[in-house]
């Protein structure tokens, strides 16, 4: 079972050096324990571009698709047998990156 662990944040700026170090330790553990699938940090929401090609005439617009105070700052995709395991990992991830996270299962 895979879960998306979204990192939610509300300020500009990257993780501090200390946070980066903690994230590295956490990532190494995910790999060692077989939970690691993928992870990444995202550039700030202002760098996003929205494209809509549903009608065949592609429309390119500047900016994130929703304007909100909180945004997706990064994510992990983890492998876990059930939600309790995923929540424990997410709790450690939240502590490591010093940000709030949301856990959502893949279908």
């Amino acid at each position, binding site marked *: 079972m895979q879960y998306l662990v979204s990192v939610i944040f509300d300020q500009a700026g990257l993780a501090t050096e200390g946070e980066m170090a903690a994230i590295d330790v956490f990532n190494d553990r995910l790999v060692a324990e077989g939970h690691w699938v993928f992870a990444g940090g995202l550039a700030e929401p202002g760098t996003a571009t929205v494209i809509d090609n549903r009608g065949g005439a592609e429309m390119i617009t500047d900016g994130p698709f929703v304007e909100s105070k909180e945004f997706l700052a990064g994510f992990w995709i983890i492998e876990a*047998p*059930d939600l*309790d395991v995923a929540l424990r990992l997410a709790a450690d991830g939240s502590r490591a990156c010093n940000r709030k996270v949301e856990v*959502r299962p893949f279908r």
Partner: protein
Amino acid sequence: MSDIREAITRAHHEEWARVVAALTRRFGDLDIAEESAAEAFAIAVERWPADGVPPNPGAWLTTAANRRAIDRIRRESKRDDKQKEARMLYDDAAPEPAGAIDDERLRLIFTCCHPALAMETRVALTLRMVGGLTMPEIARAFLVGEAAMGRRITRAKAKIKAARIPYRVPSEQDLPARVSGVLAVLFLVFNEGYLATGPGTDPVRHDLTAEAIRLTRLIRTLLPRDGEVAGLLALMLLTEARRAARVSPRGELVTLGEQDRGAWDPALIAEGHHLVRERLATGMPPGRYQILAAINAVHTSARDVRDTDWSQVVALYDQLIRLDPSPIVALNRAIAVAELDGPEVALAAVDRLEASLTGYHAYHATRADLLRRLGRSGPSRAAYDRAIELAGNTAETAYLTRRRDQLG
């Protein structure tokens, strides 16, 4: 005939959770477990009057429910083979942590009370899956429409399945927090029964208090060494013991001091006291429920309200405030202080809580009573008015109204 009906009711009380739990374990699906269990009980209602009550009702019901579940899965998997895959057990028989109790019903309770579900959903799901209450019963208890309650439970079951909320006793690391989450659910059920809200409801909903006690007893048999489980059970028993004396024949709330103590239930009090003594004997630091139970034990030990050991009550509230420094605890402490140091000292303490409790009826009711005792009729009347406005319980409103109208 009434014997059969009684046997079915008893089987429902004793076996429902066991049947649902066994089926959930086997088929990994709460929906199938719940519906098949309900069908099995419906078959029993039909068959037992003619065939007689089977020697082992629990086994009979589990077998019947298992058959219905298998029928259902066969029918549905013809429609969609992928669903069958989704119904595989997701418990995957992981080794149980040492010392964790392997009981099916306990797994069921922990799943229903999972912190990833909203509190109101946990309450509804626990009453349905563990308590066996019907959807209309639950809807009535919490004053929501049946359709809305049905949707809430359906959504919860969908989340449990999609997010894989596990069906097992939480790990050692998660256990203390999860147990306290389960107790919070049961305490909420009890309180809703004890001080039911809503103009059309009975002031005391005995069905809910009884259900909460029954489920807490169940948790206690499953986790006999947990102090807070024992504490919550004792607290419920000592509160329930006073039920008959708590509302007058005219439907008015009777305060602790004015209750006919002869109408208290001595068996429930003895059981509650026994639990409190048992916890004290362990010498372990008590949690919130154990302290509340101890306070209730002091009250129920006094044959007359004048014999109440108020210094002991205040000391216990002091202990509670260190654990839970909430304004509501401070308010209750002040009520005890009034008996020990007089209403003037208590009123000063209560007035300090205004900012946080101004929307709470008990804050105004307490002030009204203290002001009345100090002979300050005008401010007392205003406080009663405010308390009556905010109170949601019919017996409490009746009591407050009489008190206000008696002011000189």
